[in-house]
């Protein structure tokens, strides 16, 4: 089933703020095996010019992916969620995500395409802090594979 093109450009309400915790950053850094001190030692992070420990670059996805989930499960969109795979991911950072940040995401459907029967949806997640300042934008491209292909 082709998905509804009229959803292109649609934005969803900002998510409730996600509070970035030091221990969550530590857990994430340990999970990816990265012992860079900027992720766990506030002094090391400050020596690099950051206000507090920072999160690894892809940590932002943990926040935007939850926001994107609300979009792809929007029944009106008609995406076959069980057949969805992650095709592309891109980030553009104004600054790194930092411990103590309270981050909110506005998701927008950037594009919808049908390629060889597969539905391809790109969602842009704009992540802002409590003051409304931009932190990072995440573009997530998802593909719902055509049913006959699997």
């Amino acid at each position, binding site marked *: 089933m082709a998905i509804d093109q009229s959803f292109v450009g649609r934005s969803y309400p900002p998510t409730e703020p996600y509070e970035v915790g030091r221990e*969550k950053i530590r*857990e*994430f850094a*340990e*999970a*990816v*095996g*990265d012992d*860079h001190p*900027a*992720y766990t030692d506030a002094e090391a992070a400050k*020596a*690099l*010019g*950051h206000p507090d420990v*920072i999160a*690894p*670059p*892809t940590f932002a*996805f*943990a926040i935007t*992916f*939850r926001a994107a989930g609300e979009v792809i499960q929007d029944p009106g969109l008609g995406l076959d969620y069980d057949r969805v*795979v*992650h*095709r*592309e*991911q*891109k*980030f*553009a*950072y104004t*600054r*790194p995500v930092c411990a103590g940040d309270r981050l909110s995401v506005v998701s927008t459907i950037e594009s919808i395409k049908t390629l060889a029967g597969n539905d391809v949806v790109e969602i842009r997640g704009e992540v802002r802090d409590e003051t409304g300042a931009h932190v990072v934008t995440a*573009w997530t491209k998802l593909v719902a594979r055509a049913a006959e292909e*699997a």
Partner: protein
Amino acid sequence: MTARISYADVEVGTELPARSFPVTRDTLVRYAGASGDFNPIHWNEKFAVAVGLPDVIAHGMFTMAEAVRVITDWTGDPGAVVEYGVRFTKPVVVPNDGEGALIEVSGKVAALLDDNRVRVDLTATSGGEKVLGMARAVVALA
């Protein structure tokens, strides 16, 4: 932000130190918990096979997180990453044999940009197959 590498010291073609990152089932369980992505294709063999995969596969975002370490280790400041994007071309299959898989990553400076920024292109393979496409980042150097 304080990158350790100076813009003046790099040119197009400068190679970053390559690295290999092991990934086992244990790694995937930890990553699932830390990232909040509990899709069973990353930990449940039966489920993965039922949806047409050869075995449990690594989270694409895990592979993306490992690949950028070649850049963040090189610059010294992970906050120096300005842009980072990848395409997930092939899954990293992680067998339940205690050894798992290896993600091998190399990178080189592909373009010199303004404001002391450079574009770095990454190559990531596992089992001889390219697992990321269009893997590139823009980083701010000193």
